[in-house]
């Protein structure tokens, strides 16, 4: 799956190609300099994109690494948002503790749901996780005493000791930091023994079993970790958002994130990150024409599945390689 030059990195080969390294350096420079030369709106979009990157990393763990489908990631994201917002309100601790709490709650729910749902597979698993996602949205909208129900929940400003975050620009460095942290975490997991077990289970369950891997446990752990990362993305959301409404945690969000991961490139961390950024931008542009949004997503998703099943970056990488070899 990883025929793009970027995707070779997680396979344990040291060093990225020069062009990719240059691109990364440029992206890093842009990321650091961003709040100094743009408006608050652009920084807000950047924050949102970084949150989507982390959400995609979460979905990547379950889809890309362990090869299971999940239609419930908007729910885990929502659990992370609510849990960290409520923790932040209840306890006077620096905000990262609230984020950690959000990730842990989402992870715990993920482990539980995983242990139940992963008895099923393929379309049944997709349907079971879809049902859970819908049920969670109902919980967000109706558990008035905790989530404030359909009125939505105000999120108190994040605090880091004496520093209280009141603007998108202030939040940006923290959002960027936590995003990099999540990328680092995912890379480490992917390269580890656990990550190899994930891929072994994805590629062949019987062979994984013969290698001493507990297939069921590995799948459940993958699902739980994936939910925890999605919950962490929810905590990041609370760094710069002041309000959460259950409407934004429905199936549409799941589909958006699914599209990002598939279009970016299944099975590659860098594909998932790239997909989140490219597709996050597209979705922001499409906000001007909301009535066509779904049709355009659907069309893009279908086109990619038909013509570039390994994702945008693998597709571009292949075209570049072909051009170089004069074909």
């Amino acid at each position, binding site marked *: *799956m990883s025929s793009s030059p970027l995707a070779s990195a997680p*396979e*344990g*080969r040291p060093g990225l190609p020069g062009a990719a390294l240059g691109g990364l350096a440029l992206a890093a420079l842009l990321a650091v300099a961003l709040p100094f030369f743009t408006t608050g709106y652009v920084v807000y979009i950047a924050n949102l994109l970084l949150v989507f990157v982390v959400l995609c990393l979460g979905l990547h763990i379950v889809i890309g690494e362990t090869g299971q489908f999940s239609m419930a990631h908007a729910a885990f994201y929502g659990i992370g948002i609510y849990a960290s917002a409520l923790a932040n309100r209840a306890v006077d601790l620096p905000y990262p503790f609230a984020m950690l709490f959000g990730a842990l709650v989402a992870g715990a729910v993920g482990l539980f749901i995983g242990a139940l749902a992963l008895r099923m597979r393929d379309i049944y698993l997709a349907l079971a996780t879809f049902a859970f996602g819908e049920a969670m949205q109902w919980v967000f909208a109706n558990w008035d005493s905790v989530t404030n129900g359909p009125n939505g929940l105000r999120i108190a400003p994040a605090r880091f000791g004496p520093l209280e975050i009141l603007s998108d620009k202030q939040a940006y460095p923290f959002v960027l930091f936590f995003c990099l942290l999540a990328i680092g975490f995912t890379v*480490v997991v992917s*390269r*580890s*023994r*656990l990550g*190899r*077990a994930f*891929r*072994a289970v*994805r*590629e*062949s369950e*019987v*062979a*994984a*079993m*013969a*290698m*001493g*891997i*507990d*297939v069921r446990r590995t799948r459940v752990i993958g699902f739980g970790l994936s939910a925890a990362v999605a919950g962490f993305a929810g905590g990041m959301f609370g760094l710069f958002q002041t309000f959460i409404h259950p409407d934004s945690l429905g199936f549409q969000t799941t589909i958006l994130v699914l599209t990002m991961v598939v279009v970016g490139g299944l*099975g590659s961390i860098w594909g998932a990150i790239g997909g989140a950024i490219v597709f996050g931008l597209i979705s922001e542009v499409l906000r001007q024409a909301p009535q066509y949004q779904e049709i355009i997503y659907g069309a893009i998703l279908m086109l990619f599945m038909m013509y570039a099943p390994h994702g945008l970056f693998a597709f571009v990488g292949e075209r570049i390689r072909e051009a170089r070899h004069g074909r």
Partner: protein
Amino acid sequence: MAAEDMAAAAAPFLNVEGLTIRFGGLTAVGGLDMAVAKGSIHALIGPNGAGKSTTFNCISRFYTPSEGRITYDGRDITRLPAREMAGLGIARSFQNLELFAELTVFENVLIGAHVHAGRTWRDALSARPRGVVEEVEHLIERTGLTAYAQTKARNLDFGHQKMVEIARALAIRPKLLLLDEPAAGLRNREIAALDTLLCELRERDGLTILLVEHVMQLVMSISDRITVLSFGTKIAEGTAAEVRAHPAVIEAYLGREAAQEAAHG
């Protein structure tokens, strides 16, 4: 001959007693006894549908027998889950290749070492756990795959893919290696290489190998002992020469007339 039998009976490394496997009303294997001596190459042969693969899958714990007992290294493994075999030092290959197709050869073999790759936290988090990587590279070299270490398994030709299966099984550091038709589909040159490798594993590494195989050229050349199955029961057992001359074996493979001809002519 008799002395050899007694030695095998005294301490069979792998012992199968009264193994019976039924699928619904069909008895695939009925009351099979088989003892595999430590450090030997033991082949399980028989015509198609004889129950070889079923037996093999019972020993590797992918099937659970209806009756009977399987002991390995003095331990009853009849009811253990398949995933515990690797930890006990039992490795297997698959007849129809079960590679991690989208992963590189290196990663395939490294996953073979899964049970050894998590001794410390540092190792468990590493893409190249210490001690294990050297061994994995050595196995890749030994199976002639060095040039393909970074190639995805699905992009290899069939012969090399079979070798990846063996390298991956060896990464378990097995004491007992179970091979399901390792030579099927290989070319002569590849069979010769496999022959050399398996003999070397027995002589140098002291491995015990049980193989199910149809390629007689390989079976007759390397096996210390051969068990012949037909319709789920053992019809003969012995050395290559004994089995080859056994009338029941000739009958099972070539039919009754051939057996009579062999007996009279």
